[in-house]
């Protein structure tokens, strides 16, 4: 699904930060109101916004929480120049927001396996909430079970566990993985996924994931090997516009754009994308191997 095109959402809207939550030593969640037009802006799980730090840069970021009264949040890992500047921001400081952009995760019947690798967890929080809502109130979509795999390099980099525990209900599960084994399962989220798939014999599984692209590529291969389990994977690329004209986020060989045809891609499309897990473009438009 694609969002309706609305030109009014393609210019940054400066809005003050109303709360900041320190998730761990390198991740902060910034909460603000996004009401650039007279009517409420509908944001769906997995969609992204362009976030402008005036005086610095503007970067695409997934919306981590979609709240009431136009309140939304982004969760930012302090990993680069712009994200580092964002970490210095205080309540009341203004950031520019435009969007939302792209398609979104859609809850599917059956068992949901949701994987977040590092800060990728922020992008899947709202689909976990959506799945949980459907599970509690099964009108059109029936969710049997939510298995959440939350992975990080080490214990101190894990995030959102308390929040996940609150969202997840009986017979759901939260699997924690760290590369160094400092907490939970020692190993990658993908190894945990394999273990779960080899063990369980549930029908109609859907895998939702966001994280480093190499992880996503492995998730995809594992799912393809397990009778082509449907996936919804959230890809990330450099972009200038977010609405389909700069071309930096084009994927080979189909020319699909991460900003508009994605960022969530399913099996049929991922099978065709030769760039997937391999090639990105930098801000000049030059390709590089990831």
């Amino acid at each position, binding site marked *: 699904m694609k969002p309706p*095109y609305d*030109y009014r959402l*393609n*210019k*940054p809207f*400066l809005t003050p930060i109303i709360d900041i939550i320190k998730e761990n030593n390198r991740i902060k969640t910034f909460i603000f109101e996004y009401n650039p037009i007279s009517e409420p802006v509908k944001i769906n799980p997995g969609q992204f916004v*362009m976030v*402008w730090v*005036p005086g*610095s*840069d*503007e*970067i695409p970021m997934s919306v981590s929480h979609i709240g009431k009264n136009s309140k939304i949040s982004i969760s930012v890992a302090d990993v680069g120049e712009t994200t580092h500047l964002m970490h210095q921001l205080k309540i009341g400081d*203004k950031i*520019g927001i*435009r969007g939302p952009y792209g398609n979104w995760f859609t809850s599917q019947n059956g068992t949901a396996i949701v994987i977040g690798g590092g800060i990728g967890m922020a992008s899947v929080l709202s689909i976990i909430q959506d799945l949980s809502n459907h599970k509690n109130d099964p009108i059109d979509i029936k969710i049997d079970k939510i298995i959440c795999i939350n992975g990080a390099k080490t214990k101190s980099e894990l995030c959102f566990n308390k929040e996940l525990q609150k969202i997840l209900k009986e017979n759901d599960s939260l699997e924690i993985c760290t590369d160094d084994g400092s907490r939970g399962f020692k190993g990658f989220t993908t190894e945990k996924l394999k273990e779960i798939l080899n063990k369980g014999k549930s029908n109609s599984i859907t895998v939702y994931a966001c994280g480093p692209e190499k992880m996503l590529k492995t998730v995809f291969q594992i799912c393809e090997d397990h009778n082509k389990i449907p996936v919804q994977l959230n890809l990330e690329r450099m972009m*200038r*516009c977010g*609405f*389909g*004209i*700069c*071309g*930096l986020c*084009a*994927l*080979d*060989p*189909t*020319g*699909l*754009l991460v900003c508009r045809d994605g960022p969530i891609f399913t099996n049929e499309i991922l099978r065709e994308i030769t760039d997937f897990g391999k090639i990105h*473009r*930098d*801000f*000049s*438009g*030059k*390709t590089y191997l990831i």
Partner: protein
Amino acid sequence: MLNELSCEISGIEFENPLILASGILGVAPSSIVRLSNAGIGGTTTKSIGPRTRFGFSNPSIIEIDDGSFLNSVGLANPGIEAFIPEIKEIKKKTNIPLIVSVFGDDPHIYAEVAKKSELAGADAIEINVSCPHAEVASIGLSAELTKKFTEQVKKAVNIPVFVKLTPNLANIIPIAKAAENGGADAIVAINTVRGLSLDIETGRPILSHGIGGLSGKAIRPIGVRCVYEIYPHVKIPIIGCGGISKWQDVLEYIYAGATAVQLGSIFSRGEEKINEILDGLHIFLKKHNISNLQELRGKSHDFDDELEVKPKFQN
């Protein structure tokens, strides 16, 4: 290949007059393949310079009103060496004309990038002397420099050379003539118009560079006017560019004197726009029993003698 929309520019045949404008979707070969599959007549790459250039930071492209955009990308590009394989790939995967847009620090560098593009397979070169928020803007403001740069590129290559002009001056005619005198095979008019957008709450310029180039619907009358003014003064074909979003806009440019047109900002609304525009043109031509769109070229000038020149006064 001959059909009611086909046209020819300096020996290059276009199945239809819609060409991708430089700077939009013109960096990844896959994007160009996608537009080719969607029915576009030709494509122009992003402007390519001698070395990798990141341009200006974001925000660098915003939509300031319905269908009107302001950008200060700042000629970001991978550099010709990295772009050579991309040109080759585009040529391998498409069979429509490919125009490579080039720029550089001096005439020799323009020529060098153009030569390398030709060797990689470009069908034509477009010289960018008109990006309004980069160093090259000053070239396009001077007739002398425009001629000099055009001559240098013409000397270096054996394929047609188009010169893309800026609208950011009082009189575009001398620049168009200078390009023709320098040997240009066609003129592309216009590049973006200098513009500025400010945040309402804070007064702060929104683009990282402040002033940017306006494109889209807002500039169409400026583009049509420039083509209209240039047409009687040059013999070479004109490619109209600026703000085309529907088939009627294409006709306006053709009436003003354009042989073909370039589309850019409209692709924010998807590549389906190509077919919408082509269908509209086909229907119009059929309805008026016109065998080729080119019969309408310059038609607006039939009315030159009828235009009011002097305002009227009381008494």
